[in-house]
C-alpha cells in the first residue's frame, strides 16, 4: 500500500516538474521555438484528452437525435411522400413550391398571429412566475413548509396532457363544474361556454399550462438560490436590510445569470408552443384563436399527406425561432453582458 502511494506521489511530482519545466521554458530568450496553438492543443489533448470521454454520450446523443434528422428539412423542397428517398435518383425537387403553397394559404397570417400571440402571452406570464415563486419559497423560514409547498407546486407537472385537458373540460367545459355553478346562480342558460369561445382559449391554455409547470420550472432557480453565500445574507442583515430588501439585493442578483440564460433559451423557443395540447383543446368554436402553425402542420402535413408543405411550414417556424434566439442573445450581450456565445 505504502509503495503504491509512493509511486503515485512520484508520478505527480514528475508531472509537476514537467509542467514547471514547460512554464520555465515559456517566453525565455534561449528557449526553443514557442509552440503554436495547434501544438499546444495537441500536447494538451495527449495529456488530458481522456476527459473528453465524459462528453461523448451527450455528443453522440446530440448528433444522432438532433443533427442527423436535420437532413429531413430537404423534404421542404421536394414532392415527397414516405418511402421516397430524400436524396436519390428519383427525388422530385420542386424548389420553393411548398413554401408558396404554404404562404398562399388564405389563413396563413391568422395562424401566424395566433401562434405568436399564444406563445408571447405564455412567455410573459410563464417566465417570471417561477422566478417569483422560487424567490418567495427561498425566503421562507420553515424548511418543512418550504419543502411541502415545493412538492405541492411541482406535482401537477406529472399529470399527462390528455388528463389535464380532461380536467379542464370537466371544470370549464360545457356542462362542467363552473357552468353548473353559473347556471345555478342564474347566469346564462348555456353556462360560460369557455371551450367554445375564442377569447377564452388563450387564457385557459396559458394559465393551465403555467399552473402545471411553474413549480417544476422554479426548481432550477431554487437550485441557483441555494448557491448564494449565507455570509452575504448575514452581512445584509447586519446592515439592517429587511427580508424583502435582501431578495432584491442579494438573491435576485445571484440568480440573474441563470435568469438571463433561461430567458435567451425561452425566446429561442418562442414560436413553438407544441400542438398536442392545442389540438386537445380545440373546438369548432375556438378555431379562430386555436388554429396555430403547428396544428396546421399536423393537419395539413401529417393527416392530409402533404409532407412537403408540412415540412416547409415547420422549417419556417424554426427559422423564426433561430432568428429570435440570435436577437435575444445579441441584446443580452449588449445590455446584460451575458450571452450564450
Amino acid at each position: 500500500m505504502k509503495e503504491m502511494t509512493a509511486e503515485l506521489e512520484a508520478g505527480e511530482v514528475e508531472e509537476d516538474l514537467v509542467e514547471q519545466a514547460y512554464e520555465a521554458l515559456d517566453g525565455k530568450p534561449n528557449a526553443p521555438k514557442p509552440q503554436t496553438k495547434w501544438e499546444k492543443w495537441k500536447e494538451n489533448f495527449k495529456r488530458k484528452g481522456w476527459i473528453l470521454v465524459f462528453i461523448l454520450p451527450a455528443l453522440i446523443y446530440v448528433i444522432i437525435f438532433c443533427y442527423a434528422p436535420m437532413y429531413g428539412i430537404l423534404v421542404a423542397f421536394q414532392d415527397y411522400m414516405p418511402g421516397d428517398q430524400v436524396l436519390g435518383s428519383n427525388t422530385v425537387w420542386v424548389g420553393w413550391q411548398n413554401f408558396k403553397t404554404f404562404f398562399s394559404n388564405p389563413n396563413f397570417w391568422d395562424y401566424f398571429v395566433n401562434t405568436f400571440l399564444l406563445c408571447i402571452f405564455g412567455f410573459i406570464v410563464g417566465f417570471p412566475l417561477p422566478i417569483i415563486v422560487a424567490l418567495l419559497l427561498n425566503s421562507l423560514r420553515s424548511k418543512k413548509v418550504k419543502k411541502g409547498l415545493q412538492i405541492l407546486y411541482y406535482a401537477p407537472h406529472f399529470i399527462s396532457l390528455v388528463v389535464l385537458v380532461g380536467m379542464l373540460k370537466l371544470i370549464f367545459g360545457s356542462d362542467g363544474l363552473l357552468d353548473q355553478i353559473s347556471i345555478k346562480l342564474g347566469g346564462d342558460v348555456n353556462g360560460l361556454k369557455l371551450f367554445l369561445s375564442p377569447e377564452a382559449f388563450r387564457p385557459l391554455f396559458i394559465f393551465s399550462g403555467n399552473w402545471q409547470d411553474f413549480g417544476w420550472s422554479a426548481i432550477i432557480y431554487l437550485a441557483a438560490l441555494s448557491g448564494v453565500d449565507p455570509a452575504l445574507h448575514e452581512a445584509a442583515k447586519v446592515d439592517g436590510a429587511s427580508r424583502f430588501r435582501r431578495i432584491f439585493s442579494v438573491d435576485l442578483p445571484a440568480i440573474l445569470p441563470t435568469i438571463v440564460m433561461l430567458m435567451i433559451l425561452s425566446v429561442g423557443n418562442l414560436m413553438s408552443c407544441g400542438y398536442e395540447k392545442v389540438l386537445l383543446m380545440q373546438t369548432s368554436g375556438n378555431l379562430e384563436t386555436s388554429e396555430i402553425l403547428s396544428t396546421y402542420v399536423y393537419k395539413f402535413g401529417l393527416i392530409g399527406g402533404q409532407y412537403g408543405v408540412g415540412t416547409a411550414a415547420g422549417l419556417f417556424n424554426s427559422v423564426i425561432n433561430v432568428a429570435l434566439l440570435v436577437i435575444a442573445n445579441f441584446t443580452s450581450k449588449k445590455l446584460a453582458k451575458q450571452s450564450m456565445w
Partner: protein
Amino acid sequence: MKKVIIGISAAVIWLVCVIAFAVAAGKSGGAQHQFTVLTVKEDAVKDYNTMPVFKQLAEETGIEVYWTYNTSTQYGNNTDPVGIKGIDAIYHSGFSNLKLYDYGRRGRIVAIDNYLSVMPNFKKILNERPDIKEALKSPDGHIYSLPRVEEMGLKTYPNMLYINKKWVKKLLDSGWKLPSGVNLTEADLVDGLDLYRSDFKAILQEFYDRDMDETIPDKNEIPLTFVSGNWQGNESDLIASFGVPENREHKTIVNGEITFTVEDEKWFKAVEELYDWNQKGLIRSTSFAQTDSEFLARGQDGRYGAFYWWEKDTVLAKENRDDYIIVLPLKDEDGNRFVGVSNELEVEKGACVILEACEDKEGLLSYFDKFFEPEYSAQLNYGSIKSGAFLSEKVDGKLIPNDDHGIQSADDFRMKNAPYGVVYLTKEVWENNVQMESRANLRLENLEKYVKPYTFEGATPIPNLNYTQDELITLNTYESSLSNNIASWFTGSITGKTPPSRDSWLNLLSTNRNSIDTVKKINQEAYDRYIAATQGN
C-alpha cells in the same frame, strides 16, 4: 465473486439465446402463404383467417390468402403503410384521392385497370357503370384501388328528427296548446308528426321551462340536441328548414351548379334563429362541442326532448325507444318543408390497394374480383352464411338476413363477423340477390315516407369527382381554411354572447371570397367533366 460473475454471464448468455430463438421463430412464423394481405381492423373483430367466407373463397378460387392486421390506431400511426415488408395488398387502406394518386404515380401501388383481363366482374361493373368508373379514376386516368359500393340510398339523408312523445303528451294533458292554433291531439303523436318550426320551438321552450321527467335531476333535460358537423345527426336539416339545401359541408349541387349554402341570405337567417334557440336554452352549447360517443352516452337515460340522428335505436336505451316518434321536416311559416342532401358517397375509393411488391398481381386480383359477386359481397358486408348472418335457405333466390343472434345485438354480431371492405351491393343486387336487413329496410321506408319527399328542389349530392393534380393540391389548401373559417364563424355566432350581425356574415363571405370562388370553380369544372364522361358513355 468468481461464482457470481460466472452465474451472471451464464444468465446473460441464456437470455440472449432465448431472444435470438424467439426472433428467428417469429421470422419464419408458420407456413409460407401464397399471398399476405394487411387489413385494418379492431381486436374485437374476428380473425379474417377463421371467417367462413374467406375459407369459401379459398376453396373456390384455389388461392390462399393469409390475413394479417393492424388496428386503426396502429395503421394511422404508420406514415408509410405501403412500405410494410412482406405484404401484397392493403385491405381497408382508406387512402384519399391524393394519396392514391401519389402512390400510384410513383409506381408503388398497382394500376388495377391494367389487369381487367383477369377481373371479369370488375370489368363488367366498369362497363355498365360509367359513373363508378369515373369516380375511381385518378388524375392520370388510372384506377389505383378497388371500390366499396353500397347503394342503399341511406347516406344521402343522414338525419331524422325524433321527439319525445311522452313529454309532448304531458304538455297536451296539462291543457297547453300550440301557438299556431293547430289542434294537436294525442292521436297525432305517431311517426310523421307534422309541426311548424315555430310550434316546435314553443314545444322545446316548454321542455326547457318545465320539469318534464321527475326521474331526471334538476333541469338536466335537454330540449334539442345533435352533433354539430358530424356526418350523421347534425343540424343541417334544421337549417335547411329555412329554405337552403344545407349539408355539413355547406356545399351541394343545385340544378347542376355547385352551390355554397353559406352565401344564401336564408342561411344567415337560420344562424340568427339558432342563436336565439341557443340563448333560450333550447339547443345547449354542448351540441357544438360533443363527440358522437358523448351524444350517445347522454341519450341513454332518456333526457332528450328531441334529437337528430340516423335512427333512434342506437341513441336510446331499449326501454325508452317507444317514447320517441319521427317528426317530419319542420314547416316554415308558409307551410313549406325542405331538406338538403349530404355528400356522403355510396361509392368509396381506397377499399383495397395492391402493392407493386406483389409477385403475382393477376392471381391476387382475380381473387379480389370474386368479392364483387353478390353472394360474397353480402357475406363480406354482414358476416358469413355459415356463421349465421343469413338463413341457410334462400327465398326466391335471395339471401335472407338472420335477425336472431341470441343475446348479441345485430350491431354487435355484424361488427365481430363482417370484414366489410370491397363489396358491390347495388339496387339491382338488393332486388335480385340479397334482402336488406330489417333495420335498413325500416330506415329506408321511413326516409321514403318522412324525409325524401321534401328534398330541396334540384338538390343533388356532389358525386366522386375526378380532379387533376393541381386541382387536388389547390383544393386541399383552400378547402381546409375555408371550412375552418365557416365552422368557427358558425359556431361562434350561434353560441356567442351577442346576436350574429349581418356585417360579420358579409365579412365572412368577403374575406373568404377567393376561397369560395376557387373551390366552386374547381368543383364545377370537375363536375362538368364528370357529366360529360358519364353521359358520353
